[in-house]
């Protein structure tokens, strides 16, 4: 087993441990920290796979934007909330059973199926050049072939900003 494989196993175990911690931790801040650890381990996995752009965006967008936002909101809230003290609802046993069933079905589907490798895809499409996942190749492909999708996401982000402001304003009007 090479060094990269060891690192891959380490990051996989760390992200799994973060996921388990999320289920047991009582306070939402600890849940958020466990999720951040899990996401950073996933970014390490992406870096090992060679998809550096995605690894950077995982840290920038997920940890940097989404989770920082989440942590701010948690700090705004009351610590004596009853949902902080009592972690679980009533449906623990059926939920775990259902999730085990789901994991078994997904695992059987993933393990039984055949995933296409790069060499097989080369045989299917003779003119294809296997992509490298560097920043330059990603940006060229992104802005040459997917510029329309990029523009659509900007519209989506604008709509999200307007909707967030609208939600906050209606709530304020109802209060005052």
């Amino acid at each position, binding site marked *: 087993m090479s060094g990269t494989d060891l690192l891959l*196993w380490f990051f996989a175990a760390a*992200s*799994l441990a973060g*996921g388990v911690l*999320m*289920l047991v931790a009582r306070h*939402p801040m600890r*849940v958020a920290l466990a*999720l951040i650890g*899990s*996401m950073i381990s*996933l970014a390490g*996995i992406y870096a090992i*796979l*060679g*998809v550096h*752009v*995605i690894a950077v*965006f*995982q840290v920038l*967008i*997920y940890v940097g*934007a989404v989770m920082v*936002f*989440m942590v701010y*909101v948690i700090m705004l*809230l009351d610590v004596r*909330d*009853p*949902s*902080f003290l009592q*972690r*679980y*609802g009533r*449906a623990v046993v059926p*939920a*775990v059973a*259902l*999730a085990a069933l*789901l*994991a078994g079905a997904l*695992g059987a589907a993933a*393990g039984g199926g055949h*995933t*296409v*490798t*790069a060499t097989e*895809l080369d045989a299917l499409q003779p003119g294809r050049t296997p*992509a490298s*996942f560097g920043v330059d190749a*990603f940006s060229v*492909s*992104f802005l040459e072939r997917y510029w329309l999708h990029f523009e659509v*996401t900007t519209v*989506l*982000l604008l709509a*999200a*900003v307007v909707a*967030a402001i609208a*939600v906050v304003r209606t709530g304020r009007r109802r209060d005052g």
Partner: protein
Amino acid sequence: MDRTQLLLALAVSLFSLGFVGVMVRRNALVLLMCMELMLNGVILSLVTFASRSATLDGAVLVFLVFVVAAAEIAIAIPIVLLLARQRRTLDVGAWSELKG
């Protein structure tokens, strides 16, 4: 166990863990975070397939999913805050009349 199998197993486990969290936990913010964990599992499988078949389209799709997830959380958190302000609690049990 080769690399693809390991990563797919990890993706399935992360998705299932997040699923348990969404079903079991009471706090609305923790529910949101468990949904993020499920999304991360799905993204991991997407990246695994993209890197195995050496296509850039998967990487671009992952980037677009990141943007959509950021937009989703920007809407979801104000909604959760409004709910918390109305019932003075983050417990989703306070909203159990929504099940009809």
